[in-house]
């Protein structure tokens, strides 16, 4: 065997090139595709979406009126699209966090983590490689739903804008929830622990926040009512605060942000901002929930990825 000089990593590379060179991504994709799980996830996803969409179609088809007017058909199209995207959103939250939740902890459990750490592979490449594999797989799941969602295109009514927003929404969700799984995987020693914590967090983000929001909304309404006397705020200030808090809460849960965005789209004005009218008649505009959602979840992802890299880098004490 001759001496092989260790090649320094070239710094300037395109993302695609980096991805192709990252040994972790390659290994993960290979083993994911080799296993039966990927196939199972794709199948279950298609069955769930297909089932739901068929149900809607059959319900509508039972009513002969549906096919009489183009506008009825269009709303059928919109409904199918919204349902497919909403369902896919829910599924993506779970498949993303669960497909990244073993990323680091399973390497620890297999005792391959230390082997990797003694190589020249930087912690950052390990973390990003794992994340890329999880996100790419979930994008594949999302892509596989397109044929079903595209059924809605036959009926018309779905705009290009809606398709674009849905895509951004789903991609950001796949990235963010993969990052959540990855983070707990890097923090906790066991995959079972990471799975438990990450599932709880996913449930809180999906359902906990909307419930919390409803409670807060109730509380804030009372506060607004007593606004002037109790908090020293004018009633307009109190109302503004309330609206802001609610807007924020709506935007940080995938479900509420999705529903609110859908409502915006159905109102058919603009999908970029949300306007709320105060009791004194003035109206205030906020960025649309899907925009806030995108910003918040992208920032969250970056933070979680950085924390994961730190956890991987940490030398045992």
């Amino acid at each position, binding site marked *: *065997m*001759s*001496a*092989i000089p*260790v*090649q*320094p*990593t070239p710094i300037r590379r395109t993302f695609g090139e980096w991805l192709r*060179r990252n*040994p972790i991504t*390659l*290994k993960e994709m*290979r*083993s994911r595709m*080799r*296993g039966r799980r990927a196939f199972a996830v794709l199948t279950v996803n298609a069955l769930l979406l297909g089932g739901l969409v068929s149900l809607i179609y059959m319900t509508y088809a039972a009513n002969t009126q549906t096919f009489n007017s183009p506008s009825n058909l269009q709303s059928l199209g919109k409904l199918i699209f919204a349902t497919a995207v909403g369902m896919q959103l829910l599924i993506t939250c779970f498949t993303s966090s669960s497909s990244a939740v073993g990323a680091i902890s399973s390497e620890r459990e*297999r*005792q*391959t*983590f*230390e*082997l*990797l*750490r*003694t*190589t*020249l*592979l930087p912690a950052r490449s390990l973390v990003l490689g794992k994340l890329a594999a999880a996100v790419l797989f979930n994008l594949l799941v999302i892509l596989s739903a397109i044929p079903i969602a595209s059924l809605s295109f036959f009926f018309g009514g779905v705009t290009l804008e809606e398709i674009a927003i849905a895509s951004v929404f789903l991609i950001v969700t796949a990235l963010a929830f993969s990052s959540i799984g990855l983070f707990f995987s890097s923090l906790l020693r066991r995959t079972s622990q990471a799975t438990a914590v990450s599932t709880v967090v996913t449930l809180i983000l999906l359902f906990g926040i909307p419930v919390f929001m409803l409670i807060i909304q109730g509380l804030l309404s009372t506060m607004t009512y007593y606004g002037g006397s109790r908090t020293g705020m004018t009633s307009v200030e109190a109302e503004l605060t309330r609206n802001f808090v609610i807007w924020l809460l709506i935007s940080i849960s995938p479900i509420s942000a999705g529903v609110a965005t859908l409502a915006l789209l159905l109102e058919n004005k603009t999908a970029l901002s949300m306007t709320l009218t105060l009791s004194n008649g003035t109206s205030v505009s906020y960025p649309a929930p899907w925009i806030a959602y995108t910003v918040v979840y992208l920032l969250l992802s970056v933070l979680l990825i950085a924390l994961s890299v730190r956890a991987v880098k940490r*030398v*045992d*004490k």
Partner: protein
Amino acid sequence: MPPIIEIKDLSKKYGKRTAVNQLNLAVEAGEIFGFVGPNGAGKTTTLRILATLLRANGGEAFIAGHSVRKAPRGVRGVIGYMPDSFGIYHDMRVWEYLDFFGACYHLREGERKRLVNDLLELVDMTPRRDEMVDKLSRGMQQRLGLARTLIHDPQVLILDEPASGLDPRARVEIRELLVELARMGKTVFFSTHILADVAEICTRVGIIEAGRIVATGTLDELQRGLATQRAVHISVLDRATEAQEFLSALPGVGGVEAHVEQNQQQRTRLEVKFTGDDAALSAMLSGLTARSIPIVHFSEDSQNLEDIFMQLTKSSLD
């Protein structure tokens, strides 16, 4: 040239328990160094610190001049580390396993292909290249693990109990491989609690006990340094009493016992307790032959390794 592995006053505590206690050790390039000690002596802890996986509480360690604490990446580039457990991926073929780790050292694809073939050849696993790693026998996995440590052509191999849990044949194969690697110019630093592993192949050994080095040196040195008393066996055909008187009068001889050996053509066996060096031992033999005493056997009963080991590590048994 400075030692390729240098450990200075290294200490490691787990909570209140001291695992490594001000350990000092130097290994020269090209050595096969056996790090021997009973279970719990602190071998794995020391090796993990050297492999940059664990931070010491005190002291320093250098590998090929790189500080384990300050330049972990430099260290990683020059060491091949094999932990006491074989890290298995369940869904990987033998060649993929090596190729994957090669990529983790940033080796290019074409280079890796050639290296994987060379390494499989070296560890005699070419026919297994497409088998799944988790289906391999323990001995095969250990050899594959060794091949993995070599993928980036490191100068130093740090191996934690490379022969443990193997059947005798696989053990011999691993030992032969280590010798082969040293011949290729690598420094091999390996831990073991099995003495037979170090006996045949090590250039030097260091014995660790309760986190401290209690002895280092070649096996000969250890044996001589420890043998406070040597036992010499001499068999004579005749004139046993004369021989016994001559021997008893020699300086350094502490006593001579004579036994008539049964079924051995009237031989008499003399057991001599002796504290002299090799020159004195040789003089003993020349003295006997100068008197034409019919000697049929003359040997030193070398103290076996287990005895030395027990002597050195007896504090753990107290």
